[in-house]
């Protein structure tokens, strides 16, 4: 749900239900690094309500589009993490194992 105004779409608050810090903090991180964003922050109004408010203010672009882009960025990032991780695991499994491997502290 979006709370903003029709006149000025560059700032809006988005309410996401059934989400928490997991998504909100990740999105906040991505949005903060977007040069179009002047302000972004999130809050959980009450700990027993499962929802977060994400405030996005931009230099002019519609806040909705900027938020959408950030989610897309986050998805690409996740895809890359999965690929890299799978590669690393496959590489580890194919590695010949020495008898006594004492790497962990």
């Amino acid at each position, binding site marked *: 749900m979006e709370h903003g105004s029709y006149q000025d779409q560059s700032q809006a608050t988005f309410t996401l239900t059934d989400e928490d810090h997991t998504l909100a903090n990740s999105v906040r991180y991505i949005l903060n690094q977007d040069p179009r964003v002047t302000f972004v922050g999130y809050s959980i109004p009450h700990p027993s309500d499962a929802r977060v408010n994400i405030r996005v203010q931009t230099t002019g672009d519609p806040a909705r589009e900027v938020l959408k882009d950030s*989610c897309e*960025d986050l998805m690409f990032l996740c895809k890359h993490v999965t690929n890299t991780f799978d590669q*690393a695991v496959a590489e580890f499994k194919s590695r010949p194992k020495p008898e006594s491997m004492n790497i962990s502290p």
Partner: protein
Amino acid sequence: MVSEKKSEKIPVWDLPDIPKGELPPHIQLQRTRVSCTFDAPTHTENVLYSGAYAAMGVDNSLRLPEFRNNFKVEVVSLSEDDMEFDMIGIDASIANAFRRILIAELPTMAIEKVFIANNTSVVQDEVLAHRLGLVPLKVDPRHFNYMSEKDEPNEKNTIVFKLHARCEKGGPRIKVKSNELKWLPNGSEFKLSTEKSNPDSTSKPKTYTSFGCSQDSMPEFANNPIASKHGDIILAKLGPKQEIELEAHAVKGMGKTHAKWSPVATAWYRMLPEIVLLEEIVDEKAEELVKKCPVNVFDIEDIGKGRKRATVANPRSCTLCRECIRGDDWEKLVAVRRVKDHFIFTIESTGALPPEVLFTEAVKILEDKCERVISELS
């Protein structure tokens, strides 16, 4: 005291040029490292804002191609249930999202309903039911659906176990262990009490579940019977003539509802410790430093003529106890830091899924969350 020496005036155009696109070393250090000084860790925050270093001609915005080049994963150890790997070049917020999802939002199967036909043991029904709930089950939750309140328990959302243990009169006391939970692939064997027993009817009597087919006829369980992950978990102890007879129904759920559904014993990360010797530490000082560290981070190397020099041999095992920078001027000799974008991630699976699968599933869930937001916004 006022210093007598007057600082020379340097015209601004004679100052050395600061290279564009590069941060001065002290700011770069603050940006990439947490310094663990004796009184407190400093520079713990991450500078996120894209224009934070605009004045120095440095763009701090997120560039995915750059992320792609820098992001690395190195598996340190991987066994059936445990995994440790290094995740390098990612922000704490994303690493923390993965950790939170692993703990609270990945589904597993766990016993939710217990039908107790007989319990004469000293363990009360509700305590026994709670203990059963916490038993990790070795079953892939991806083969099952969630059961909502209006759903009938069927072969796609419920696993039924039977437990019948009895201690004979005059025999020794026995322990009821989790390997006595017997999987019932055909569903519940307890008849519904509302059903009238009709000896003439040929149809099967109604039970607490309505399975359409047997679970062991499904290809995923045919050669892979469902059981408790560990057979040696003590559920109750029985004295002579005591008996437990019950049926346990496991359903799919998430760790945020109850910790019994969490697929990990725990999942955590720590930042890579980095220890830098700011000056050369030799001879007695070196010996002292090696002795100061309780986890043997430092080592001594010979530099000839019977002289010794301290080296940092094993920074990974540093626990940041900061013993090495305690007292005198040690803080000027040794710097204890943490690398902000290097995470040593550890996953301990409870056994439903192997840890590497858990992690990829966690990443997938974060992706799904993003997709949901995108579809809601458009």
